[in-house]
């Protein structure tokens, strides 16, 4: 009996010590919940709902605004595809900055989901001689053309194969997403991606409160944390609501096309049917759903 009592008080002491230790390190119940949160894919609808609600509250507290965090699943009968007209693109990088704003990418340290490569016309598509840091007064520069590259939303994505924790996967509508709360930050996916489409939060990401986009998706543009990987999601928060990705909307020359590959009437299907398209690094068998074509 006495022994039992002492054991109980021992356990009690232990828990007191543990909790005060947790309190001392600045943790609270919410962060413990967050720490213990399971992979998004195996959560129930109710659990997802609770998480989304608590995220909205958390962001409101941090930024002093109303947020809407969606966990809307893929719409049945959709398979998103993208096409980019190389003969139109002028390399203005408006898409890069629209993407940053829409998707709450960190400003400092800087993260860009879209990289625009300047290439020499004489060499054709040649990565070894491409330049992302071109900076002339005016684009396009003589003798050059431009290839914007972001996630190619592969049908056979190697980033997913290599992830040791299944923190990244392909949604039924073909979008490759990351669960930022599950990613351990090993960066194997970055080594595996042939398009440099994955980006890592090397430091604490930083988005100014007045510029933050409050319309969010759990698997998309919600604020990320230090030490996780992020990538283009075709603006999942927009396209699942029937809108275009923001890079498509901003493009001043109309080089960017987007649509449902399963819809025979869609613009993307028109392009596949009537223009000749190519994909980048087809020899790697990644089978992108991001096509390049020459419209004129």
């Amino acid at each position, binding site marked *: 009996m006495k022994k039992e009592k002492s054991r109980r008080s021992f356990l009690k002491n232990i828990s007191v010590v543990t909790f005060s230790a947790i309190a001392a390190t600045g943790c609270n119940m919410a962060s413990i919940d967050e*720490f213990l949160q399971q*992979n998004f*894919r*195996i959560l129930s609808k109710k659990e997802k709902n609770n998480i989304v609600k608590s995220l909205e509250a958390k962001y409101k507290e941090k930024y002093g605004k109303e947020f809407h965090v969606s966990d809307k699943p893929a719409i049945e009968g959709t398979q998103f595809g993208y096409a980019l007209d190389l003969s139109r693109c002028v390399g203005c990088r408006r898409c890069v900055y629209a993407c940053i704003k829409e998707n709450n990418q960190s400003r400092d*340290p800087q993260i860009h989901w879209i*990289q625009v*490569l300047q290439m020499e016309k004489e060499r054709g598509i*040649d*990565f*070894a*001689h*491409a*330049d*992302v840091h071109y900076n002339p007064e005016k684009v396009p520069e003589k003798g050059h053309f431009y290839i914007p*590259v972001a996630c190619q939303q592969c049908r056979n994505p*190697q980033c997913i*194969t*290599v*992830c*040791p*924790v*299944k*923190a990244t996967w392909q949604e039924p509508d073909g979008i490759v997403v990351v669960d930022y709360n*599950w*990613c*351990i*930050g*090993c*960066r*194997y996916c*970055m*080594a*595996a*991606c*042939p*398009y*440099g489409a*994955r*980006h*890592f*939060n*090397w*430091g*604490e990401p930083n988005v100014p409160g007045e510029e933050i986009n409050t319309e969010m998706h759990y698997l998309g543009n919600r604020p990320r944390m*230090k*030490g*996780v*990987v992020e990538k283009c999601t075709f603006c999942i928060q927009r396209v699942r609501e029937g809108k275009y990705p923001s890079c498509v909307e901003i493009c001043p020359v109309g080089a960017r096309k987007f649509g449902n590959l399963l819809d025979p009437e869609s613009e993307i299907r028109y392009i596949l049917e009537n223009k000749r398209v190519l994909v980048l690094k087809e020899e*790697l*068998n990644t089978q992108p759903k991001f096509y390049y074509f020459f419209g004129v």
Partner: protein
Amino acid sequence: MAFSALDKNDCSKPDKKFDMNFFRFLKGSIKIILKGNKAYYIWLAFLLLLVLWGGYGYFGQLRFGLIKSHMRDSVSWAFYIGNFTFLVGVAAAAIMLVIPAYVYNWKPIKEIVIFGELLAVCAVIMCISFIVVDIGNPLRFWHMLPIVGTMNFPSSMLSWDFFVLMTYLLLNSVVVTYLLYCVFYKKEYNKKFVLPLVLFSIPLAVGIHTVTAFLYNALPARVFWNSALLAPRFLASAFCSGPAILLILFQILRKTTKFEIKDEAIWRIAELMVYAMFIYLFFTLAELFKEFYSGTEHILYWKYLLFGIGENREIVVYSWASIIMGFIAFMLFLIPKTRKNFVTLNIGAVFIYASVYVEKGIALIIPGFTPDVLGQIYVYTPSLTEIRTAVMIFSLGFLLFTFLSKIAIAIIFDHYNIDSLRGKS
């Protein structure tokens, strides 16, 4: 005697007074660790200083993130994973040395197994430490475990690597603890129990390094690694660096303890290392021939490694340092006169160790990422934080190995056993 009723040929059966004795063993071992001559204390103080200096650097990384490293999106893996790869080689080679010890019937085979396994255990612990410091969210490490997390097995080579390394760590810990335990209790070890485990640890040693090579090999996006020769080259280079440590360790043990190993056995190890170096050289030349003669765009990465591209030559000094040290070691080991001279032999051992370290730490990883997949060049060299963190892990590893070896030496050579404990208490 408490265990007199037990079968004398088997010490795997539990002792009634086990708890008590285990406590005594711990106390005795701590005493052994703390006792030593002046050189020993200087060594410990040196290591502790390095741990503190390195630990403070790592603390900065924990606070601010991996931004404290020089890794960026272009070069997203670098020095840490290079160290990891090197140490997997050390861990693997430490056990593979059991094969020649067995084949040539070197006398102290049990001791070679014990010290090899201790080295392997320490090296694997250091490997795992390097992975932990390399990931962005070390607290989420449990996501990788089966059942509680969602391990991507068998798809991801990283989960394979984690799995084989854990098995290897467990296996070697069990064998070495058991062997020492038996010596400590003055009992014969159960051969039926040990032999299959030792035999299994040999292919597993090949396995951990092969799987680690496949980690890189599995990425078609990185043509620098996408060569079938990568895994064989890994094994060959590991057979150069791992035995180099044991070579020096055996000489130290021979001088300071009753450990006996003949000169012939040491020279034989050196001879085997020459074969390994030759094979490594041959594989590398084959790789270089294919790349440079065919001259496709894949040549870029080798060019960056050996000559630099344009103004970007920061990495060239590493690659040539590795090549030159490796070549000197090869010559020293190849010529019988210098192989059998212990001064030149040890210089060779240090050189080959350093050569493989630089090769795995920098020359293997960085050209895989430079130029990056979009053809851009980001010049990477390790940051001070990365060097300090690596120093911390290496010092902790050496500290652990020093302690474990000291206890093992006491048990095997200095009559530290159950009777001596009882005598004292």
